């Protein structure tokens, strides 16, 4: 039963969806503060290479994860500074971050001797439980069969959701993204909130990137993550800025990335290049459907998303 195509597909979808969960929840938190960060792709790549590098040097995957988080957070500061302090166009700044992050990751991948490119990973994460309840029908693989980062991603989702909707900080965060002038007048420090959540988003993107280089692949090569960063940005909209929805949307996209393999198992033939496009096509269609007309507002897009705030400006 546990090796039925359905269970195997869902299990794989959870794995492929996990980096998207981290990055999407991170971007949700950033966008909830009113800052649009199109640099997710760049931040994920930098996180991926940093995580791989630290693991390669130390042999310790946990240090790898920490390095990925720190690296993602660090380069997100570039976007924080240009969009919050300098108030330049967030779109331009975010795209620049993606270009920069991509280049930086490729550079780091080739810089040392031996180069990271082509080296095998010295360690990886494996499922925490083997046998026992992990072999139970259905719930075994789907609930108990994962590595620690999958459980961490569930915690991140639950935590982010609770934070957003049940804490004072979350309330202030939502207010900052909706109407920074009103939040400011109510005594909320808009600049601090925006910086903090840009950095939080960067940290989670970095972590998502490391899931590729430490678990899914696990090795380093240029553009290791495909277009995962862009998918995450689309998923924010699909999830209408809510963490729990992001979890399920990410798994759905994980499953889409797995269609190729599933069809093969079912002995249905289809051109694999076309199948590889499915997640992107799905993302574009979802975005078009969900954001047409006034719907984006109804979905819950923060009203001040992408708009710099300057207190004394009319």
């Amino acid at each position: 039963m546990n090796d039925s195509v359905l269970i195997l597909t869902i299990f794989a979808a959870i794995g492929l969806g996990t980096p998207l969960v981290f990055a999407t929840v991170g971007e949700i938190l950033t966008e909830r503060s009113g800052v649009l960060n199109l640099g997710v792709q760049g931040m994920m790549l930098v996180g991926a290479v940093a995580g791989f590098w630290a693991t390669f040097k130390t042999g310790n995957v946990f240090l790898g994860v920490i390095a990925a988080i720190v690296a993602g957070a660090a380069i997100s500061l570039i976007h924080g500074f240009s969009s919050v302090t300098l108030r330049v166009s967030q779109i331009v700044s975010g795209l620049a971050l993606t270009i920069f992050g991509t280049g930086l990751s490729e550079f780091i991948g080739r810089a040392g001797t031996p180069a990271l490119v082509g080296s095998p990973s010295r360690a990886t994460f494996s499922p925490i439980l083997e046998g026992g309840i992990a072999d139970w029908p259905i719930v075994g693989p789907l609930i108990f069969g994962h590595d620690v980062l999958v459980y961490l991603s569930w915690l991140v989702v639950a935590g982010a959701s609770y934070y957003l909707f049940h804490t004072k900080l979350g309330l202030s965060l939502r207010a900052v993204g909706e109407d920074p002038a009103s939040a400011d007048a109510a005594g909320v420090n808009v600049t601090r909130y925006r910086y903090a959540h840009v950095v939080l988003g960067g940290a989670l993107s970095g972590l998502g990137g490391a899931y590729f280089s430490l678990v899914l692949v696990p090795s380093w090569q240029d553009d290791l993550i495909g277009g995962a960063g862009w998918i995450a940005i689309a998923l924010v909209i699909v999830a209408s800025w809510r963490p729990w929805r992001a979890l399920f949307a990410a798994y759905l996209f994980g499953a889409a990335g797995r269609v190729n393999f599933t069809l093969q198992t079912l002995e249905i033939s289809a051109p694999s290049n076309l199948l590889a496009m499915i997640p992107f096509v799905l993302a574009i269609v979802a975005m078009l459907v969900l954001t047409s007309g006034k719907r984006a507002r109804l979905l819950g897009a923060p009203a001040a998303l992408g708009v710099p705030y300057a207190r004394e400006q009319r």
Partner: protein
Amino acid sequence: MTLRSESPALDLRGISKAFYGVKANDDVDFELRQGEVHALLGENGAGKSTLCSIIAGLYRPDTGTMHVYGEPAHFRSPKDAFAAGIGMVYQHFRLVNNLTVAENMVLGNADLRMRYSDVDIERQTHEIGNRYGLPVDPQARIWQLSVGEQQRVEILKQLQRNARILILDEPTAVLTPQESDQLFRTVRQMADEGRAVILVSHKLHEIKQVSDRVTVLRHGRRVGEPVATADATPRELAAMMVGHDLVLPTRDPNEHLGDVVLSIQDLRVRNDRGLEAVRGVSLDVRRGEIVGIAGVAGNGQRELAYAIAGLRRPVAGTIALDGVDITGTSVTSRIARGIGYVPQNRLGMGLAPGLTTEENLGLKAYRKPPFSRGPFLVPKTFKDVGAQLIDEYDIRGVRPGLPIRLLSGGNLQKALIAREVTQQHSVLVARSPTRGLDVGATGAVRNLLLRERDGGVGVLLISEDLDELLALSDRLLVLFEGRIVGELTSDEADPARLGLLMAGHVEETA
């Protein structure tokens, strides 16, 4: 009179603040005593909001010092001002529309615990509302509330934080007379509790009614010393405010009544929710007359104006201009045919906030020479025509190359009317054209409308301001629940009769 302590709640000295080189406040001194209601009076653009925003920690002054209850204060943000017991209700409310009343009440409040439950904050909101006789529904989202209710939330928010100094920036601009009276009772109650209140207004009768002292600002500077309200007549205050004696213009009998220019038959128009808001209106406007439409807000005024301007398609009925049916035509073609429209919401509908003043002034004429040649604009025409209009209509605060949204409300309105009036047209529809304007600007706008009438234009004046309607209209129609329930000539019209009609008491015809 309650006992007043002598230590000032606020003491500001030499406050100056400039925006883009224009001094919004220039060496202003201001003193606020505990337990007093202190009115801040001044024309649009005099610098009242700027001064209040400085006190509330939103703006930082360029120079000057501030003491709060004797302690020097250097606020870096509104948060610091809250900590010193200062709360402000802004002219443009600072509420987060998508959040509930209760959430707005607790937002940014340092006393709130890290975790909160909706039930708790809703209960608190309810309690404080009842305590001050300002009931609100804590679960409602801000966008669902009327402006009056939103203001209540703003005031409660400050009271809940226990503000000792409360600033109300033009609180009555959005209220009905009844709501204003209720507000003044609350203000009095707060002052009697020992709080100090700054009340910003340019309405003299309100200031007479509720304040203890008055400070007047003009062009960013303080005029004379603060005066005790009881010692000043409205006329004196008005003169201090505008710098000279001022009487608002009123109509002379019209001499050149012409043919019917605008004719509306049995018009029916739906509102945003799809309900019929105009339910069978017929009216004629002749050249050379001002027809006033009186009525309490929300009786179909908006939809009527939209239908005439071409912004909304009526469900039935006809609109004819000079005998030609224009019911189905577009806004552009109506502009071309000579319908001018002065909307109520200036930045939302009439003006493009991000364009310069000159560009806005040419916004309706740019398709034709001399504003454009073929597909190209002619910047020089914009500049010349702009400069001429700015001068002629006394539009103040214009900064070359900077967006028009930086102007104060009165000057925005003057710009809008200047643009509409310079168009060649035969009908002008004006909705509450002087709402929110000070006396000086009101006088200028009234003169413009009268000049239009005397030039042979048919003017439809849709307003909630009875004084204005009575002063300008040759004929008055009363709109109630989408129907015209009465027609009075200027000789028959008086506030009492109008008031009854506006409330839906249809007169018996003899």
